[in-house]
């Protein structure tokens, strides 16, 4: 990389982080000091901000770095596998689940998913069961963000500070790696600090504003990078022609992705129905109509971000670019370094990648604090025991504790961090039958919900152990009979919910009627 030791990329990234701190100051001024404003932005977020915040939250480091990496490994089929299916399923979930949960949340004043489930199934204990499962599934998600940020910044800053950061010795090769690069522990600290600053200032409103700004940044930088990379490779046609010559299998799916794998992957995007951070964003909406723009534009936005990344991934194969250390997640950074030699461009793209990462981290941080405050502390000690200020402070303290734990995990990174993301999504997706049944099946019972959640947790743990910990092939997806593991977990969770609900006493009509407001019981609609 020409000018590898130039500090320009770092200055650009630092400038971007400073802008985010400034945004934190602005949102702090707008913060009304109430817990409602901190946790659900006073339910006042408009259509554009909801679109950008939901999209930014849904698109993690996975969207830019992971999509390029997967395309590098598996070819163009990755788009159909992960992106276009999400365009259909995410909007479907927003339409069928998101709007309905928003309405219930607004009507009954809920702030978290668990508040809703506790009330719907008339069980405080169910909330205590669900809380650790949701937190445990969010932590790997946070880990992916921090590891992704550390990895990207380390790649871009290589050689900048040879005396301060001499690098690490690879015991296998005896060579020093990452000499002069900003180490991931420092990036993790800085990124966490910046995100904590702007969310502590403005709560979920701060997160929504920062998400919107960062979504614009990463979409624009992604498109700019794509255009420049295509130009440097001799144009679109030349770049793709090279792939056709050297690795034509990357331009199709035969031998790369199985049919059952492709079909069952479609269950993974159902995870958005149970993401606690997305639930919180839904509740910030000013009205149901606010969702319309999100539902329509989400698939198109996914396309704008993913198509360029997938093409860059397969073009890298055509160019013979070798993933550093065999780690395909480093391919995007390698392409940028090898093809875009301008340090300013490198800095801008790095800022864009960090934007994608932070636009998810912020919502996850806020939702963890919200869940702890409402689902554990206020549930145990009572709503009136604490002032608004105390509630906000408790939420912040829990966020710091979880971020600290996650930060410690970054010192022991798993080898394939994006596979961890798919496992995390699979867990949330397998809880989807729970939320769907709670909204559309009156006969769903407390026992069914509890049994289903326990079965999901048990099945997920067994398959995760087999796939990630017990020596599964790290270079390919762990499949069960050619299917994604989510199929098994989802089926077990859904079957248990239905079977146990039918075997147990139905909930009282009075309790259930509160949550079935529409055509199933039109009499309950207002005149």
């Amino acid at each position, binding site marked *: 990389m020409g000018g590898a030791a130039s500090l320009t990329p770092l200055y650009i990234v630092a400038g971007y982080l400073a802008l985010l701190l400034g945004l934190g100051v602005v949102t702090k001024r707008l913060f009304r000091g109430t817990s409602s404003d901190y946790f659900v932005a006073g339910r006042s977020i408009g259509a554009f901000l909801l679109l950008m915040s939901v999209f930014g939250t849904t698109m993690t480091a996975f969207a830019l770095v992971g999509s390029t990496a997967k395309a590098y490994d598996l070819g*163009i089929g990755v*788009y*159909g596998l992960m*992106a*276009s*299916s999400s*365009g*259909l399923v995410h*909007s479907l979930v927003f*339409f069928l689940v998101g*709007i*309905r949960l*928003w*309405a*219930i949340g*607004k*009507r*009954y*004043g*809920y*702030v978290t998913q668990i*508040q809703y489930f*506790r*009330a*719907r199934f*008339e069980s405080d204990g169910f909330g205590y069961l669900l809380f650790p499962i949701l937190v445990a599934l969010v932590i790997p998600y946070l880990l992916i963000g921090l590891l992704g940020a550390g990895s990207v910044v380390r790649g871009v800053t290589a050689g900048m500070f040879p005396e301060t950061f001499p690098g690490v010795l690879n015991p296998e090769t005896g060579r020093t790696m990452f000499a002069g690069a900003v180490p991931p522990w420092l990036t993790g600290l800085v990124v966490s600090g910046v995100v904590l600053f702007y969310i502590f200032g403005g709560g979920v409103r701060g997160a929504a504003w920062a998400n919107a700004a960062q979504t614009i940044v990463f979409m624009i930088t992604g498109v700019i990078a794509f255009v420049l990379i295509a130009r440097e490779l001799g144009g*679109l*046609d030349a*770049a*793709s*022609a090279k792939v*056709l010559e050297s690795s*034509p299998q990357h*331009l*199709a*799916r035969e031998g790369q992705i199985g*049919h059952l794998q*492709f*079909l069952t992957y*479609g269950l993974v995007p159902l995870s958005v129905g149970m993401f606690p951070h997305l639930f919180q964003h839904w509740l910030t909406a000013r009205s*149901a109509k606010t969702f*319309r723009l999100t*539902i*329509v534009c*989400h*698939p198109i936005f*996914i*396309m704008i971000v993913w*198509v360029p990344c*997938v*093409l860059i991934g*397969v073009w890298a194969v055509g160019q013979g670019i070798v993933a550093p250390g065999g780690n395909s997640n480093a391919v995007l950074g390698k392409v940028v370094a090898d093809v875009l030699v301008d340090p300013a461009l490198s800095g801008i793209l790095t800022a864009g990648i960090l934007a994608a990462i932070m636009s998810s981290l912020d919502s996850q941080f806020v939702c963890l604090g919200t869940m702890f405050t409402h689902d554990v502390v206020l549930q145990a000690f009572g709503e009136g025991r604490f002032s608004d200020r105390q509630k906000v402070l408790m939420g912040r303290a829990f966020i710091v504790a979880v971020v600290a734990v996650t930060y410690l995990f970054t010192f022991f990174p798993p080898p394939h961090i994006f596979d961890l993301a798919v496992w995390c999504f699979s867990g949330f997706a397998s809880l989807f039958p729970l939320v769907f049944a709670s909204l559309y099946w009156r006969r769903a019972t407390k026992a069914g919900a509890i049994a289903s959640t326990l079965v999901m947790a048990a099945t997920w743990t067994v398959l995760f152990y087999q796939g990630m910990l017990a020596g599964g092939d790290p270079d390919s997806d762990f499949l069960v009979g050619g299917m994604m593991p989510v199929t098994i977990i989802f089926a077990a969770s859904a079957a248990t919910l239905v079977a146990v609900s039918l075997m147990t006493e139905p909930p*009282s009509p*009075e*309790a259930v009627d*509160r949550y079935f*407001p*529409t055509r199933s019981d039109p009499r309950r*609609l*207002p005149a």
Partner: protein
Amino acid sequence: MRRLVWALVALLAIVHWDFWYWDDRTLVFGFLPIGLAYQALFSLACGLTWWLAVRFAWPGELEEWAAAGDEAPGGAG
């Protein structure tokens, strides 16, 4: 129209599995692999279908129902 919209959503779920392009390496416009072009077009079709859904199958009654609520949180009966 509501039924047509949901029929379109079901159709999209079916045609997402484009097995007919599984081993086709044709480059559309000289650079875009046909499997990727099809799926990109699929994304646009999703956007269009969801536009029809919010236009013709919108659950407007939910808004009114939500606004009518002033109950305290948590109480299920």
